[in-house]
């Protein structure tokens, strides 16, 4: 079995923002959403938490303590206005990037 592809630098931030775009989630839930959402990437949870705190420091997401559905104290993160704007910009950039790469890879004849 081939090892899962390594995540590109900076990609994790966009994935976190996207995961939170549906509503507030705690760190464990964010991890699950990314894993099932991408299906491929294997992200270490430690790195995910470091990224969550970094984004909180930047003001893209805001953390708040609440209770999980099992009644335990958990820290929930939600997207801030700046975070939402950043997500939009990052998503557009990714689309352009991916489209360009795809166009090249899908080419049947050598572009002139």
């Amino acid at each position: 079995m081939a090892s899962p592809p390594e995540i590109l630098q900076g990609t994790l931030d966009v994935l976190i923002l996207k995961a939170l775009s549906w509503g507030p989630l705690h760190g464990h839930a964010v991890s699950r959403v990314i894993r099932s959402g991408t299906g491929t990437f294997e992200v270490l949870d430690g790195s995910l938490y470091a990224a969550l705190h970094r984004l909180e420091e930047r003001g893209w997401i805001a953390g708040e303590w609440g209770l999980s559905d099992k009644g335990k104290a958990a820290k929930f993160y939600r997207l801030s206005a700046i975070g939402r704007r950043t997500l939009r910009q990052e998503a557009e950039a990714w689309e352009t990037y991916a489209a360009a790469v795809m166009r090249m890879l899908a080419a049947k004849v050598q572009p002139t």
Partner: protein
Amino acid sequence: MTRAAGGPRSWRRYLRFWGSDIDADVELEFLFHLEAEIVRLIEAGYSRSEAERRARQSFGDIEAAARLCRRSDRRRLHRERWTERMHLARHELRLALRRVALHPGYATAVVVTLAIGIGANAAVLSIVDYAFLRLPAAVRDAGEIRRLYALRPRVGESDIRPDFTYPEWRDIRHATGAIAAAYVPPSTASLTLPEGGSAPAVVSWVDSSFATLLGLDNAISAGDTRVLAGAVISHRFWKSHLGGDPAAIGKALRIDGAMIPIQGIAPDGFTGIDLAAADVWLPLQRYIVGSQSRQEWRENRAQPIVQVILRVGSSADEQRIVRAAETEFRRGRAAYREMFPRREVVGSVGDGLIVGSVVAGRGPMQVSQELSIALALAGLALMVFVVACANVSSLCLARASQRERETAVRMTLGADRMHLVAQLVAEALVVSAIAVAVATIGAAWLGTALRRLLLPQIEFGHPPVDARVFGAMACLALAGNVAAALAPIRLTRMSDVTASLKGGSSSAAPEMTRARMIFLSVQAALCLVLVIGTGLVGRSVLQLRRVPLGYDVARVVTISARSFSSTQAAMLPDIARDARAIAGVRAARMATGSPFGTLSGASGVFDALGTPITGVRRLSYIAVDPGYLRTVGTHVTSGRSFSDDDRAGSRLVAIVNRELARQAWPGQEPLGKCLRLEQSTAPCLAVVGVAENAHTHRIVENARPVVYVSLQQPFLGPDRPPMQPSAVVVRVARDPLAVVQQLRSVVSKRTAGSAPLEVKSLSELLAPQYAPWYRGAVLFGLFAAMALVVALTGLYGILAYNVEVRSRELGVRMALGASRIRVARLILGDAMRHIAVGAVAGLMIAGLGAKLLRPLLYEVSPHDPAVLAGSVAILFLTAIVACMVPTIRAVRDTLRALLHAV
């Protein structure tokens, strides 16, 4: 993280009262994650141990992750805290501005008071700082520079001056070597610039070691300044007059006909070592004094011209050097006295040298009248400052009382004490900031005005207000204002809150009232001191104007030569004749001197037998035309004046002044006595008249013995050449100003501009002597007025507030039948009692401080009862005026008061 999932320290979260606990938060968050993951994996069919292993594996390095998270959290918290603080500050500032705008009266009173306090102080203290404290700028180790003073004793007085003759300087240099330098102090001269056009500049002539001594060698750009052959110009002058052009070096400046090339530019900030800032330093070798040749003045042992500075490392060094220099100095003086045995008389103290600070204001010479005024003003300014601070405090206290209820309500509603403090501080800062802004403008204006008034002859190189002094005053005022503004917090104790809320006055109210009344007394005391000072100085000026000078000041114009020359003497008869032809001229007479001009000093006076008349000190004589005394308005009190019959060949006569008569023949009739001038063999002059004592040099002086002799008679003996006149005195019928102009044109026509003859009315001549006294009186008055305005504002504020607070009580009193007069007396009486306490304190302070004022007084006792009584009256009158409005309001608004009472 080594702990198992069980037993999270979640309780820590509930014990956190201040801020978040970052460590615990991260730990708790990670534990929750691991627990959730383990549960998920167990549900997926893994054993507990396998689930735990997998959960840890998918987490990675827990410690490293925790470290990163904690670091991010710390940075975030720090930023959040600052943002919050800034936000709060902005909010408070906005609120404070709004509150200040809501009470413009209070804000204006505080701003005006503080601005006057800060502005006046900064302006005056800056002058004092420059004159007494500050060492010259840009000089290397300026603390090591000393100024040398010569002590030349004369009969009955010692004379300490910083001036030396050139030969004396040569002697001193011989003893001291290169650690001393000589220079001619700065004075204004007209320079012709290299590009043409002339500019007035403050010029100082300096010895070649001047620059080296001050450590300016390396700082002076261009040229080897160890041998000063050209001019060194100040950085300021270079920028302002030569456009900062580096090519200016080498070009020539022209002064008094001599072309001197610019050798270098002094370092920025260097303006010399005197209070007056110099623009140009020129080589002393090229200095010319009046009509004397260079050789002449350098050998002149009678005319002190240069000042001497030294650089000394230690005080032992200083002692040794000065002793060596003193030996040389004394030797020179002794040689001089041998040459001119009668010129000076040595008293009990010998000649000597004294070392003083390079800052002339620090002594050992007595400070000039202007600087004593500056010192007195500094005292006054501090008083105004104290009055201003007391006033601001009392205004703040009054406001605190008004806000007591508001503060109580806020505290009851749970307002945090720190928040209230922040609000009060913000408000005080806003008001203070406005005050400082106003004071900045005011201080600059006042500083410039003070300089012009007080020291008009000095060109300052510094800004009118020193930034350090201003900053210190502003900080002091700011701190005081903030402290006073915090009074409501201090005074509103929780026990008072209920009382305040009930609408009555709290237990803090009497405390505040008492504090305000103390401030009121302090203000009254200081104001009284200032008013007394003004009164005394003002009375001195009046007294001074009444001093009989022995001349008809308003009617006399003098035409005199600045330095004597025989060519001028030859022109004087023609000038006198032309003057007589001018309409409005009553008389024009010649003399060998003029009022407040030069007089000849007699080295000895002898009686009929040729024995010296003892007891006559510093006798002067003046040879005059007949009619001279009448022309200048000096009255002959007994005997007769000169007549046309007193000419060569007739009996030699003299008129003595009263002082000479008193000193020479105490208790005897002077008329008919015989006196011989200069030598025992000189002819006998018969005293035919006694004239009143006329001042010779200064408006304030002890009477000096003077003998008047006839210009036509050979009073020193037939073998001595006759004395030549050096002045013409003119008596005018009306306002001398118009005649002065005509006289000037007559003089310039006769002399064709070649000889410098000065035409000045006597009042013009005396103006510079009266000026410091007037200035002193005006400035004292100005400061007293400032203090009174400030104190009155305070008094008005306090009284208005008192009336408002007591309106309930007053209403009840009136309802019970108290008359309006009784109510008015009640209000006034309270204020007046405190003013009276202040007045007593003020009188005591004035009594203690009287000694300090003495240099500014003339023939007025510091305890002058009329001035003291007048000042107390002024204080009470102004206080009553200030009380008027609040009192009238209290009495008139009876209805309002009654409504309050219900």
